[in-house]
């Protein structure tokens, strides 16, 4: 493989952070492989997203105006890949990123690696490093047997960096195809907020929260003091206290924030596999012997309902001093 193509996920022109990480890392990998770094952006708002992408170190930004759910993006990536020749396609390991990456891989018959946290290149060969079994093992898989390959990168692992890019914007001609999937409506149940996958600080609540309120009050306040996101254990999601999009762990999301604060979460293995690769873990729990004590960097044993608001105040004060 020689070239690298970053698929850019965006909402009405606002690009997801994981896609900016893909755009930045596309350059690094393209330099190692001796090829070009491309970005592909499709759908309503694509032109606006392309303007943002100009600040990233890309060679070409390909814009498709097709508004076909998933398919429009897959077609765009396919067109760019086939024109570029042997290429590695980078997608964020997000719902949309996986849909686009997986369909492209099946369409062109190439390998796909999911939840990639590191790359190794050797000549034109690309290997991906991926934690599996909830981080119990680290696997390395080489993409082979095709001119193409797909890597779905774990959000928050690779850096997103603006530079003085000089990318050329290229319009992808419209196919005129009709969409096979009809989008009937889109409902926002929560305010558009930073997702747990992309936040550098995540404050999660579990069974110990006892109800839905803490997720929109004390946990949210603490998360906001850090500019972070609210997460949850499966127990809290199953109880209906918070939506599934917040769930960290098995059957939820696997995340690697810089700081993970677990509040009222015992630390069962199903939760651990989703957050064990966090850089720093702090637990607040009434039980000092909860399983989470075995892998948290700090466990504070006490009343979370009293400690969290107090902590929020101190964090706000500390941030205000630096601001």
């Amino acid at each position, binding site marked *: 493989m020689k070239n690298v193509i970053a698929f850019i996920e965006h909402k009405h022109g606002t690009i997801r952070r994981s896609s900016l990480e893909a755009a930045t890392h596309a350059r690094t990998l393209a330099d190692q492989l001796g090829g070009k770094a491309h970005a592909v952006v499709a759908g309503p708002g694509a032109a606006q997203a392309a303007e943002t992408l100009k600040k990233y170190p890309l060679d070409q930004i390909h814009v498709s105006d097709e508004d076909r*759910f*998933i398919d429009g993006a897959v077609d765009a990536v396919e067109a760019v890949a086939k024109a570029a020749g042997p290429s590695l396609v980078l997608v964020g390991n997000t*719902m949309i990123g*996986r*849909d686009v990456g*997986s*369909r492209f*891989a*099946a369409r062109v*018959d190439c*390998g*796909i690696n*999911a*939840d990639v946290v590191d790359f190794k290149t050797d000549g034109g060969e690309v290997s991906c490093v991926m934690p*599996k*079994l909830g*981080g*119990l093992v*680290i*696997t*390395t*898989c*080489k*993409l*082979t*047997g*095709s001119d193409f*390959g797909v890597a*779905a990168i774990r959000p928050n692992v690779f850096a997103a960096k603006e530079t003085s890019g000089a990318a050329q914007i290229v319009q992808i001609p419209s196919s005129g195809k009709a969409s096979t*999937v*009809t*989008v*009937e409506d*889109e409902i*926002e*149940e929560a305010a558009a907020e930073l*997702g747990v996958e992309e936040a550098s600080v995540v404050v999660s609540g579990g069974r110990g929260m006892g109800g839905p309120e803490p997720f929109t009050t004390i946990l949210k306040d603490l998360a906001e003091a850090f500019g972070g996101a609210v997460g949850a254990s499966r127990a809290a999601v199953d109880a209906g206290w918070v939506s*599934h*999009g917040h769930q960290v762990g*098995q*059957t939820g999301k696997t995340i690697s924030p810089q700081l993970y604060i677990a509040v009222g979460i015992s630390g069962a293995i199903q939760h651990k596999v989703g957050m064990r690769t966090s850089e720093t*873990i702090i637990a607040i729990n009434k039980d*000092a012997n909860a399983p989470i*004590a075995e*892998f948290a*960097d*700090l*466990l*504070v*044993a*006490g*009343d979370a309902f*009293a*400690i969290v608001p107090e*902590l929020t*105040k*101190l*964090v706000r004060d*500390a941030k205000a001093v*630096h601001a």
Partner: protein
Amino acid sequence: MTPVSGKEIVRKALAMGADDAVMLSDDAVAGSDLWGTAVALAATIKAQSPDLVITGTQSTDAISGDLPGMIAEKLGFPGLTYARKLEVEGGRVRVQRETETGYMTISAALPAVVSVTKSANEPRYPSLKGIMGAKKKEIKQLAAADLGLTVAVGTGGAKAQLTDLATPPARSKGQVVQAPDAAEGAKAIVQFLKERKFL
């Protein structure tokens, strides 16, 4: 697609209400990567001429979440992923697809592939009648040769080839601080955050 040892799992699916079961067991598909698995499964599914294919979202070991989309693409069907609710009406399937901030309603003409999330339903417990009935049902076993595949799958045909398997360093136990009151607890955390340069 499973080694022969997976027969009991297939039997359980029958006991839970499936009418028929087809099992692909063959050394030729063992060790398949995502691409090989998608090729083999799509060929197996295609032979059943389904109107609707329902999958889970991801396995709990590899957790890729890529197979539903790949199977849809290989079958040439629309793929509706991350469905928390689905209904079939008038030759179309309509689902509520989960998003990061809520859901979107999307629909497509059958045949289609739908992957469901955990919130789609509660799996029913096999009834005694179901369990007894499942014992009598035949599980159709297919080999790779029955699928008419023109490409090599399995370990040899993998396009993502495992080259290394390592154990990460274990996380060690950190400090445990008893907080007699909120102020003490919060102070301990802030001090720790300052040491780690978060504040």
